């Protein structure tokens, strides 16, 4: 992750001071939560803490600094760079991706247009989810994903906040750059929420490798087709697949000779099978590898790797991401 200053800049002046004084390891910091008239909280190393005005973190709710409406609005102005209108589409989905690839989730009063969400107003809750770039964290997974000179269609299955995007990002980087035993190949990334590359003004802020092309803020289904037509990738990588359009586009991509790296929410292959749209892909053994993450002691710990038939290729020890 790039500097504390870059991240802290998005908060109101007062909150900046508090967060600046907070003595934490940024790599372990997962979330910063702001709620109107509620204490400032962080998710740190898998636990939740309250942050006092002095910057000290503790489990004592009473010590937490209470965030007021003005501070939240000021923070929102900085997050949107004084241009909320430019993030209308993102706000409809409930989050904005900021410089550095961090995701800012928002909640408040929803404005409807017929039966569709038009926007969010009176934003009263902000959750800053930090993007972590850990180079080398896919090192233990890659030998199971690479078969000879080919990469297997791979699905990373993980509960939220367990490091699936971090793992995917490093897999992309290593496959694109090449490793000791695998030459680099062209990777196309469809980064619908700017989380993988964390692109700012179209340039990825995270290292995705030298042979990687990124379609930023592009819907996955359309993006995958665009990449196949225009950038001839050997691998296509996408985050959080799930809707009908994604599945349809995946089927097309598979028939074009591209390999697929994707992630999905869940905690086992059984969970994925329960999702009607993904069930078909699992039953047809489209994915050749399933990388399951869990969140025991360490974020991004690999629980197991399975092949298309469900045979465990790797279990237990784990790679921390």
């Amino acid at each position, binding site marked *: 992750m790039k500097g504390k200053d870059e991240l802290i*800049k*998005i908060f*109101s*002046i007062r909150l900046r001071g508090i967060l600046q004084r907070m003595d934490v390891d940024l790599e372990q910091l997962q979330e910063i939560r702001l709620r109107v008239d509620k204490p400032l909280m962080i998710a740190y190393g898998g636990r939740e803490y309250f942050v006092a005005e002095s910057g000290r973190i503790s489990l004592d709710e009473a010590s937490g600094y209470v965030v007021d409406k003005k501070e939240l609005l*000021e923070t929102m*102005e*900085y997050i*949107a*760079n*004084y*241009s*909320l*209108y*430019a993030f*209308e589409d993102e706000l409809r989905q409930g989050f904005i991706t900021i410089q550095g690839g961090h995701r800012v989730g928002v909640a408040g009063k929803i404005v409807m247009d017929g039966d569709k969400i*038009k*926007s969010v107003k009176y934003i009263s809750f902000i959750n800053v989810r930090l993007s972590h770039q850990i180079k080398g964290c896919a090192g233990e997974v890659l030998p199971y994903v690479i078969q000879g000179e080919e990469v297997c269609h791979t699905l990373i299955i993980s509960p939220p906040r367990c490091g699936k995007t971090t793992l995917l990002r490093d897999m992309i980087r290593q496959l694109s750059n090449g490793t000791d035993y695998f030459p680099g190949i062209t990777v196309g990334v469809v980064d619908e929420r700017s989380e993988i590359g964390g692109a700012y*003004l179209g340039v990825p802020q995270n290292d995705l490798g030298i042979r990687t092309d990124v379609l930023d803020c592009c819907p996955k289904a359309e993006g995958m087709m665009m990449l196949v037509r225009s950038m001839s990738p050997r691998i296509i990588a996408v985050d959080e697949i799930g809707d009908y359009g994604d599945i349809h586009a995946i089927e097309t991509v598979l028939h074009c000779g591209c390999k697929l790296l994707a992630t999905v929410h869940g905690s086992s292959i059984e969970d994925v099978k329960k999702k009607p749209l993904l069930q078909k892909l699992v039953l047809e053994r489209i994915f050749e590898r399933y990388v399951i993450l869990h969140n025991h002691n360490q974020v991004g710990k690999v629980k197991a790797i399975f092949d298309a038939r469900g045979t465990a290729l790797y279990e237990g020890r784990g790679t921390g991401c």
Partner: protein
Amino acid sequence: MLKWVGIGLMIGACSAIGLSMGQDLKKRVTQLQELRRMTGMLQGEIQYAKSPLAEAFRHVAGRIREPFSDFLRHTAEDMEEFSGESFSEIFSRNAEEDLKGSGLLREDMEQLRGFGEHLGYLDQEMQLRTIDLYRTQLMETCETASEEFKNKEKVYRYLGVCMGLFLAILFV
């Protein structure tokens, strides 16, 4: 001899004042037109590229004349500082600093500051309507200023010369 030189200089100076007052009227019209061109470009950036304000300001700054280019560039720079000022404060401060002596009148500056107060917060549709409204106001102001220029430019010029002659006669 010296007396006639003095009289000549006095007539010349008065004529120059009249001419300069006429030129100020012309300058205001030109600046209002440039301001309208600037808002048209901003509208395009917001409508088609969905650029945030700082980015839109930077793009437009490269395509317009000074002092508006400086004004947009400085505003964009200050916006990226996140110094605790609201957008309208940044906009207003930079307008005051960069457009001083630009030929715009106080009422034009008030109008511009009012425009700045409504930028940034709203959804895209409202944003574009705000710009549209300001452009309509600018067009009307520009028409009035053009009319004023046509009517008063000659009057100022003649008045300048006449005042010089009048003073010359008075002193002779």
